[in-house]
């Protein structure tokens, strides 16, 4: 039983100007020409590919032209096949060839896909690829005695794939993760702060509720304010009443002058002083003036009536 491959295999070669026309939703597996990467076969005493990958920037350091490179490697028997490639250049070439990122199913190096190649294969009109010391190289076809055409139908692909970093040239993964971590920590701190602020608000609200029971307040603050205003007005008037009475009682009266009536009703205090001749009142009411008490004076014979509205 043979399953039909769901994606088409394309050979991506910068020397060919072909623009691929892909159907909507079509997926393609790409094999990158050796012209798109640098490859080295290395033998180093490390066990895992991960460890090798860490060393690759220094291994390729002297052999690469200036650029922003990504690295990849896989193990082959006792050796490692290491790659250096420029994501930006490959992405630009793919865009030029009409291959959108969403259409790509996988990307492979020609090295990993043709490592058992027995004869040369033509990749374009002028060039062919062939294996030399286990490494796939591109040479002019005219140098070769014979070269077979490149056929990719039913090509079985290896598991060695790469993923292109779209923004690797802007920010490397390490920096990106660092920025992401910092932002995430900041988000965490903000969330903790929000939680704590919420708790504080809840605590204050419950403390406010407990004020009502502690001081036996009415159910709404409006009612309480109204009650407060009522009693505060009483307090203000009573304090003023006592103060004004004390001013009268400490007035400098002559022996013939007597307070004959003190009357308080409906916030109005009336004090009558007998034996006051009109014109002599200035000295008597000087204390009221000093205390800025508003009053009304009236005379009935030698009786002076002082009226104070509280």
């Amino acid at each position, binding site marked *: 039983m043979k399953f039909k491959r769901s994606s088409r295999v394309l050979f991506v070669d910068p020397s060919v100007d072909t623009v691929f026309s892909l159907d909507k939703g079509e997926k393609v597996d790409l094999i990158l020409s050796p012209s798109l990467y640098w490859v080295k076969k290395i033998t180093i005493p490390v066990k895992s590919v991960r460890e090798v990958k860490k060393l690759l920037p220094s291994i390729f350091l002297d052999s690469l032209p200036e650029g922003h490179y990504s690295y990849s490697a896989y193990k082959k028997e006792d050796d490692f096949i290491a790659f250096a490639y420029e994501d930006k250049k490959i992405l630009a070439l793919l865009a030029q060839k009409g291959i959108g990122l969403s259409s790509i199913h996988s990307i492979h190096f020609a090295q990993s896909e043709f490592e058992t190649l027995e004869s040369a294969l033509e990749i374009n009109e002028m060039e062919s690829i062939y294996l030399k010391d286990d490494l796939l190289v591109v040479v002019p076809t005219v140098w070769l005695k014979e070269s077979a055409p490149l056929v990719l139908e039913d090509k079985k692909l290896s598991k060695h794939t790469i993923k292109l970093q779209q*923004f690797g040239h802007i920010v490397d993964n390490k920096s990106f993760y660092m920025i992401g971590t910092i932002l995430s920590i900041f988000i965490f701190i903000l969330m903790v702060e929000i939680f704590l602020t919420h708790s504080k608000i809840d605590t204050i609200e419950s403390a406010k509720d407990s004020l009502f029971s502690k001081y036996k307040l009415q159910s709404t603050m409006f009612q309480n304010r109204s009650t407060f205003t009522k009693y505060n007005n009483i307090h203000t008037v009573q304090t003023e009443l006592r103060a004004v009475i004390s001013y009268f009682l400490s007035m400098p009266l002559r022996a013939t002058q007597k307070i004959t009536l003190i009357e308080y009703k409906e916030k109005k205090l009336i004090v009558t002083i007998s034996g006051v001749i009109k014109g002599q009142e200035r000295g008597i009411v000087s204390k009221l003036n000093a205390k800025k008490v508003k009053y009304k004076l009236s005379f009935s014979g030698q009786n002076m009536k002082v009226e104070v509205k509280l």
Partner: protein
Amino acid sequence: MNRVNPLQIALLLVVVITFLLFKLSSLKEELLEANESYKTSEKLAIDLNSLKSVYASPKKTQKAINRILAQRSLRGANLEIKREKKSIKITTKSIDTAALNSLMGKILNGSYNITLLKIKRLSETKASLVLEIKW
């Protein structure tokens, strides 16, 4: 190869941070308001409580007035005392000025809601009095 755009992730994080900052800022404002409201309520509660304890405590006020009226200096003062549910009215057609001074000194130095007061001089040593206190 649908790789997630790191700039989109960064933008998303920045949007989340902006939202959280906005939320935190409004919560801080809410906290400030809650704090202010609590302080205002607490002050109102304390003030109202003390005012009520002075002007709206019938038992306390009546007890204090009874203590004043029971003093020795007022025994011969012929005071007419009319007690209502919410007030007390003290009247006398003639009271000795010393007794009047003693009574008024205590009333005016205490915190009572005097609603009516009339002191009329009758002679050098006598006066008439009408005094009403409410609670």
